[in-house]
């Protein structure tokens, strides 16, 4: 009789603890928001595109890719993976700044630059900006 009561008690405890364990599991991944991107600049500068943006990735950055297409988005002209250690596995990038070589790629003002950031949970976001001429900061 003692054993039966004891076993019942243990079963009840096991049920309670299993609920406790599941609530302790790392289910935050599903709730972590996707990255957000604020595009600042996509300017043509002497055979390069100067890309500037601010990134916030609560799930930490895992991959960053820049793609340049024509204005309609149908034809891809340039693809560049950004793997600099300073931009990967971070929660925020203030002043993301990369130059993309476009020599001989037929990139023109008005083309579309896509900055895709994927976090460690597989969630991604794309920032877009039409390519413009370099601004003269002195004017």
């Amino acid at each position, binding site marked *: 009789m*003692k054993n039966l009561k*004891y076993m019942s*008690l*243990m079963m009840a*405890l096991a049920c309670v*603890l299993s609920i*406790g*364990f599941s609530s*302790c599991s*790392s289910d*935050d991944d599903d709730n972590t928001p996707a990255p957000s991107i604020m595009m600042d600049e996509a300017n043509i*500068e*002497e055979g390069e595109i*100067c890309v500037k943006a601010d990134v916030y990735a609560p799930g*930490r950055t895992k991959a960053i890719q820049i793609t340049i297409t024509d204005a309609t988005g149908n034809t891809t002209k340039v693809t560049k993976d950004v793997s*600099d*250690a*300073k931009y990967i*596995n*971070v*929660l*925020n*990038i*203030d*002043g993301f*700044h990369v130059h993309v070589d476009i020599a001989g790629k037929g990139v023109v003002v008005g083309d579309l630059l896509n900055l895709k950031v994927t976090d460690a949970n597989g969630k991604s976001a794309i920032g877009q900006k039409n390519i413009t001429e*370099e601004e*003269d*900061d*002195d004017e």
Partner: protein
Amino acid sequence: MTMNKPYMQMKKTYLSLILLCALSACSSSDDNEKKDMTYPEISEKGIVAVPTDCEVFKRGEVIPLNYVFTDDTELGSYNIEIHNNFDHHTHSTSSVECPMDAQKQPVKPWVYNQDFTIPAGQRSFTARHDISIPADIDTGDYHFMIRLTDRAGWQQLHAVAIKIIETSK
């Protein structure tokens, strides 16, 4: 109805073990990272910081980097990047305006980009390096960028405007 003493002791032992396991399972290893919601800091506390805004260096000499990094939980790594500012762009981390040369096209601009790891467990670290300035690079305005990342992944940017000039003859 009374229970015998060995039975009660066994019951207490089992209960203690189960509760201990439950507590252990709930305290995950990355709790500290989730609680760290503060950016690391790049400062001049207790040192003479180098470089600072508008500082001038000569080609062929060194930039004796000297900054203090702190974080409330744990530091991670940092990156030093130097690039030209011949087009007068900004990085908006400083309100200081330095006298600048006229805009120009780069011919042989200096590009420096190096990652550094901070030893584990540090909440304060003094970064001190001598960065050699190549003798054949374009002179002019440059940006000296420090990116400090803590273990949680928060990153702080500190951009400094410097000028590289000809070596004295």
